[in-house]
């Protein structure tokens, strides 16, 4: 009977965890190989049941349309809450970022090794252009 109760408990735990997993969301990454590797090590990478990863490695030969498709896919997925994108890649799909008015998933532009962060290019900060002084960033 002890075995019965412990197996029942573990089954209930699994059901509760499965239910909770639906509400928790992922962080997606669009960046170069080093950025992606680093963030995977940080523990945010996942392949979902449909064999879709939540990251895109952008190499020199990655086309703009691939990046656009990937971005649009991440925006449409209901299990992604945040999209991290290296700023130099964000520049390639700037038109898509400017059009985006959804507040979730949140799109964050991050710096990369060769390209430091430039606040004047950030889509989100441009909406508040008149309200802050770029010198605050130094």
């Amino acid at each position: 009977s002890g075995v019965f109760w412990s197996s029942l408990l573990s089954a209930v735990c699994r059901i509760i965890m499965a239910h909770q997993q639906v509400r928790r969301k992922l962080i997606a990454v669009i960046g170069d190989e080093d950025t992606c590797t680093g963030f995977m090590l940080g523990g945010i990478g996942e392949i979902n049941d449909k064999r879709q990863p939540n990251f895109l490695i952008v190499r020199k030969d990655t086309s703009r349309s691939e990046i656009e498709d990937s971005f649009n896919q991440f925006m449409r997925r209901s299990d992604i809450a945040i999209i991290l994108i290296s700023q130099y890649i964000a520049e390639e799909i700037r038109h898509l970022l400017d059009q985006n008015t959804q507040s979730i998933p949140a799109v964050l532009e991050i710096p990369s090794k060769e390209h430091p962060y430039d606040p004047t290019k950030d889509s989100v900060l441009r909406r508040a252009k008149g309200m802050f002084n770029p010198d605050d960033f130094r």
Partner: protein
Amino acid sequence: MTDRLNIFPSRAAMTFMKARLKGAQKGHSLLKKKADALMLRFRQILGKIIEAKTMMGDVMREASFSLAEAAYSAGDFSLGVLQNVDKAQTKVRSKKDNVAGVTLPLFECVADGTDTYELTGLSRGGQQVAHCKEMFGKAVTLLVELASLQTSFITLDEVIKITNRRVNAIEHVIIPRIERTIQYITTELDEREREEFYRLKKIQEKKKKIRAIEDAVRAKYIQDQIDREGVATEARNLLKETDKDPDILF
């Protein structure tokens, strides 16, 4: 369209319009207060975003360094890392925050499951790999906070625009329209009173004229009688004849 409302001008309509004006003014001041509160929160968030983005630049740089160090010691482990992606250990959970009636979404970091990369770098450079993991972990925490700030920022921006639009609409369209309606009703009521007054005066004048004519005709008739019969016979006054007829019962 912004001329005035089409209602029948009466005193009841006047009271109704005055009540509506009061309501519109109260609504306007309340909405203005809401817009001010939201604007305050908006500026606070913007300040925090600027701080966080500056910090992010530093944290990302440290994380990149640690990755380079780890790659130097442990060799190129990126292939192994990218191939072994399975389930995420760090996920985000959304909470709701309420500011002046606006629900803002917030993100919270949630650890969920075991470390997939426990065995990476076991052969060499394990310490650097562990350090790299830590650095990127810190970066993720900071980025989740930044994402919360950013979503609040965008949501607030939209709501502030809508609220300001409503404030301006009330101030420049609704209230002037109601005021013009009240003015119209007032002028209509005044005019009606004047018309009433004028009509009364006219009737009085007419009555006076008719009486003057009647008096003139009666005077002429009596004069004619005197001229013809030498004596004036008054017309029978039925009321005076009740003196000759005693009451039957009492």
